Structure formats: C-alpha cells, structure tokens
C-alpha cells in the first residue's frame, strides 16, 4: 500500500523534477541540516539552563521564550524541506524502517516540546528548580536531548537502510 503510493509519487511530474535537477536534493538537505542545527542547539541551551550549567542569569521562562520559538520555526523548515526530500525520493524514504522510526520519534519529541512550553509558563516555580523538582526536570531534559539525537541518527541511517530496498 505505502509502497504503491511511493511508486506513484515517484512518477509524478513534481517528483521527476526534483529527481532530475541535480542541485535540488543536496541543497534542500543542507537547509534541512542547518534547521537541525537550530533545533539541537536550542534544545541544548534549554538543557544547560535546566542543569544550571549556562544561562543562570535568565529565568526558565526567559530561557524558554528565547529558544522554544526557534525550535518551532526550525521544525516548520524541517517539515517543508523534509516533504521536498520525500517527494523527490519517495521509495527511498516512505517504506524505509529508519524513516518510519524517525517519524514515530519525531511525534514524541514534538509532543514533549509542546508540553514543556506550556508547563514552564504555568508552573514557573517548579522549573526554577527547587531541590524537590530538580531531579525530575533534569531527567526529562536529558531524555529529550537523547531523543533528538536519536531522531538525527535515524535520519542519517535512512541513507544506509535504502540499500536493502534498492533491488
């Protein structure tokens, strides 16, 4: 079913155009990686603040306001460039287990980011790290960062899983 859709998509004029213009895929991938750089470093800055290793002159609410909007903007860029890459190489991506795992983890990461953004504002004192809450906040921060790294790893692995599907 998904494979049929991928084959159909690959035969559409827009997909053919992306496949046939040599510079489109590398350029779109470059923009995709730069947006990943924005997400990863924004998440890292929030985590350093939660761990008290950077940005302590700003409150958690200020830190969130500084970096979370950049995560959302970068995610929009990632969605647009990612959709372009899928359209150009549907069989390489859609039926690829690395791609499917990446999408599943992405849904979790987006949910965690949204939840984080909402709860920071509602429970500012919790996030400004009383001794009681510090452990939970740090555990969550660490898991989120690991999740984003795993998404990047799965993304890179798409290129290596495709070999099984080429034949």
């Amino acid at each position: 079913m998904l494979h049929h859709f991928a084959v159909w998509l690959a035969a559409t004029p827009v997909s053919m155009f992306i496949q046939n213009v040599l510079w489109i895929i590398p350029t779109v991938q470059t923009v995709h990686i730069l947006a990943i750089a924005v997400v990863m470093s924004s998440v890292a800055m929030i985590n350093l603040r939660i761990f008290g290793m950077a940005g302590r002159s700003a409150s958690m609410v200020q830190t969130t306001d500084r970096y979370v909007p950049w995560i959302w903007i970068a995610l929009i860029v990632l969605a647009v460039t990612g959709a372009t890459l899928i359209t150009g190489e549907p069989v390489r991506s859609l039926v690829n287990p690395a791609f499917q795992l990446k999408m599943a983890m992405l849904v979790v990461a987006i949910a965690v980011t949204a939840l984080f953004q909402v709860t920071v504002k509602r429970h500012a004192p919790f996030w400004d790290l009383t001794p009681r809450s510090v452990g939970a906040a740090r555990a969550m921060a660490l898991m989120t960062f690991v999740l984003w790294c795993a998404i990047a790893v799965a993304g890179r692995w798409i290129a290596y899983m495709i070999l099984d599907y080429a034949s």
Partner: protein
Amino acid sequence: MNLQSVFDWLQGWPISDAIRQSSWLFPTIECVHVIAITLVVGSVMIVDLRVLGLTSIRKPVSELSWEVLPWTWGLFVVAAISGSLLFASKATAYFADIPFRLKILLIGCAGLNMLFFHFVPLKTLRRWDQGVQAPVIAKLSCALSLTFWVLVVAMGRWIGFTIQG
C-alpha cells in the same frame, strides 16, 4: 615522504580497515560527526546573532560567549576526531574530492575569521558588550562566520554525492 605515502599509512591503520570492512562503523561515526557539527554550527549561530544584535540582546556578549563557546570548542574536537577517522578510512579518495577540499578550506577561513574577531573587534568589547551597537567590523566578522559555517555544512553534504560510501 609524499602525500600519497601519508594517505597509504592512514588507510593502513587497523581502525581505517575496520571502518571500511564494517557495515555499521562508518554510519555510526558519521552520526557522531553530524550531531557534533549541528551543535557546533548552532552554538556559533547563537553567538554570531547576538553580536549582530538580532537575538539574546538582554545578555552581554561576554556572558553569552563564556556560556556557549567552551561547548562549541569541545564539540568541534569531537567533530574533528570523528571526521579524521572517516577521512583515514578513504584518505586518497577524500583528498581528491573537490567538495572535501572546499570544506577544509572553509573551516580554515572560519578559523582565520575567528582569530581576526578575537584580535581586532574584541579589543573594544567593553564599549559594546551590552546592547546592540557592536562596531560594523564586529558585525561583518560575525556575518562572515555565519556564511562560512553554512557553506561548511553544504560542502559536507555535497561530499556524500561525490564519494560513494
């Protein structure tokens, strides 16, 4: 000793051989390399955009730099080591590759630009540490830094299209 014998020596390392033989070693090191580079580039962006007066403007440039740049350096070392391992596995092919050469050249340009920033505009930091009025030469240097790093990522991605894994 010519370059080719250096490349042969690198390619003869046991780790280089292991990377060539293994189905998972190259992609795994590559993942470390990519994650390190995204964090290097992202953290450089945070400082460059601050000097340009576009983000984090409530924070002094010096404070933000002290918080961010040690991580940038640490991650640059991770990117350099992982990148060197990938290079050692196929040194001759990488050295002959145009995007690879451009990438190394651009990293050199980013390094020289950083030295310039350190020794020229940064000398007057006390006057523009707060607020958004960094001198034109400081802003120019940070705009160049952003340009170089964007191109480093572009060349890195291009290597994947010119060298077969």
